[in-house]
């Protein structure tokens, strides 16, 4: 008992350190990727100067951001204002603990892994509301309120889509869900659920076309208007890390996780497959951002309540019937 406990704790600590390092590197990489993708879609090259292909650009920008003054407006809530960025970032980190990078590389293969991720992602809603309220700024409050409504509305179809997969596997444990896809990926068995998940994931991470809460052209910067320096950097980091988490979850649930196509690993280790698929999904999310204009807020809400939820409910029903019959 003592031995397993000790190695468990060690595993946890080492895992946390790796997660922290990985999330920073990942965020750096994603910011660079976003700027390159945006650039090429817009007929321009994106960052080129700093480092080969502009790779070091994000590091330099990060250094600049850290060096900026943390301006706290006088009328903000003294206690809540600095806490909000931290509140946004912490739950996202926890999600890394259960992601199935490969059969051996799961920090904690909990039997409620999926539940953990979604429970903690709901935390970020609270954090956004805190940030918007503490800013004492009408624009920020509008952005925060919209964000909360949007997040709540799109979590329901998200979870319903996930439930369809869980119904098929009978488990909330990530390693079991991925192992169940060793022959056929669930995207082929549950295409509707997959698409619903991707759409809702885009909405959960406040990405375009669902980026009303931070709509630059309408609300200046939405709920993080009043934040400067590294506090703003934390919001930013949290968004990109969140994007990674939802893509990783989508990969695990629908695209086979660490499995190669149709079970052929082609000699490539599982973690490489996992990362490849995750980053491809992230690329698709970015692609969508730079292509479409954004939805108006009531259209966004209508879309969720009147289209997404009935669709995911119907999908769940059909899945339940099929599972019962088969």
């Amino acid at each position, binding site marked *: 008992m003592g031995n397993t406990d000790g190695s468990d704790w060690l595993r946890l600590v080492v895992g946390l350190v790796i997660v922290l390092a990985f999330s920073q590197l990942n965020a750096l990489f994603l910011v660079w990727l976003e700027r390159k993708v945006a650039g090429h879609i*817009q007929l321009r090259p994106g960052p080129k100067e700093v480092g080969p292909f502009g790779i070091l650009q994000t590091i330099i920008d990060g250094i600049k951001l850290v060096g900026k003054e943390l301006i706290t407006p006088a009328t903000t809530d003294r206690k809540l204002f600095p806490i909000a960025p931290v509140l946004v970032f912490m739950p996202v980190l926890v999600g890394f603990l259960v992601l199935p990078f490969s059969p051996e590389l799961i920090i904690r293969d909990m039997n409620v892994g999926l539940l953990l991720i979604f429970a903690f992602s709901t935390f970020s809603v609270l954090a956004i509301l805190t940030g918007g309220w503490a800013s004492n700024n009408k*624009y920020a409050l509008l952005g925060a309120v919209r964000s909360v409504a949007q997040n709540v509305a799109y979590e329901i179809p998200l979870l319903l889509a996930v439930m369809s997969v869980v119904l098929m596997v009978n488990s909330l444990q990530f390693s079991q869900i991925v192992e169940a896809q060793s022959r056929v990926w669930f995207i082929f068995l549950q295409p509707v659920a997959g698409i619903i998940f991707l759409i809702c994931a885009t909405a959960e991470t406040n990405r375009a076309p669902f*980026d009303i809460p931070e709509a630059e*052209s*309408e609300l*200046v910067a939405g709920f993080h208007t009043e934040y400067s320096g590294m506090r703003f950097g934390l919001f930013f980091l949290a968004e990109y890390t969140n994007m990674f988490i939802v893509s990783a979850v989508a990969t695990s649930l629908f695209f086979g996780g660490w499995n190669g196509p149709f079970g052929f690993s082609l000699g490539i280790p599982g973690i490489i497959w996992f990362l490849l698929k995750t980053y491809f999904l992230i690329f698709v999310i970015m692609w969508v951002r730079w292509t479409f*204009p954004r939805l*108006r807020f*009531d259209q966004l809400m209508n879309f969720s309540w009147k289209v997404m939820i009935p669709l995911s409910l119907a999908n769940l029903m059909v899945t339940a019937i099929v599972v019962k019959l088969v």
Partner: protein
Amino acid sequence: MAEQFKEPVVDRVYTLNLGPQHPSTHGVLRVLLDLDGEFIVKADPVIGYGHRGHEKMGENRTYKQFLPNASRMDYLSGLLYNHGFVLAVEKLAGIEVPERARYIRTVCAELNRISSHLLWFGTYVMDLGGFTPFLYAFDDRENILDILDRVSGSRLTYSYCRFGGVCNDVDAQFVDMTRAFVKRLRSRFPDYDNLVTKNVIFIHRTRGVGVITAEQAREFGVTGPNLRACGIPYDMRRIEPYEIYDRFDFEVPIGSNGDALDRYHVRLQEMEQSCRIIEQALDKMPGGPFWNEAAAFKVRPPKGEIYFGFESARGQTGYYLVSDGSQCPYRCHIRVPSYGNLHVLTEVLRGTMVADAISILGSIDVVIPEIDR
């Protein structure tokens, strides 16, 4: 104790300041919005942040000295304003203009109109959240700016049209570049269609949004594409033909509903019609002199006045010049289309949502500096 709770504790309506510094107000516009949740109860535009006193300058400068001022009022259709002012003074003073100059001025004016509409297109879709068409539109617009830069020396504010003609002649390369540009723009229209016009999200953001009825348009003096989207075919190039527009075959696109989507379609089609005018003008351009410089040496119009109205990119612009026989105008009043276009928003914005306000503001295509003068 019960008394103090009879009064409403919170006032439902709050004021939001769509401030002068805002990514979407085109120029320095401030709109004081009274909001009830997301809905606008009252919209009060506050303008004047860009007032530079052009009309006062008009009274203290000679007609020639006022030429640069004209472009700077609406800098996006600078050449059209420059053109209009020159035409107004030529009519007042009776200055003859050679044929070649007329064709050159028409080509350049239509190029300017296209560049203004391209910029509007890019910024409008950007306001709605689609960042990419902005760069495509600016890429096309660079071609126009290069062409006009070659002949006039400026990229944005032109004094190319002078009294009696234009100050530089155009050469064969200008004609080639313009034809190449028209061809390229025509090949881009399907791209814009696929990316924006047929995009479901875009259509949802613009259909039925910001409807201006024909009665409202008449009440507020709305002109230009906004009026044409309501179904009224009022284009100064047809109503009061000036220069040589009566020689060209072009259509005046109109809409039917007066909503943002119709305004969008009208402007896109206008770009196509401008391409047609440019092609016809290039085909028919005669040789000969390009500037009647001698006649315009001393511009001293006889006593009297003139109101000259022409079609700029935003609507009908008018120069009202009162001459006292000297070298300076006695009164130089400019009627700007964005005046009425912005004014109508006080009624149109009532009852809409804040996100729609941005869409409507963008679709109206106001340039605040021309209101401020």
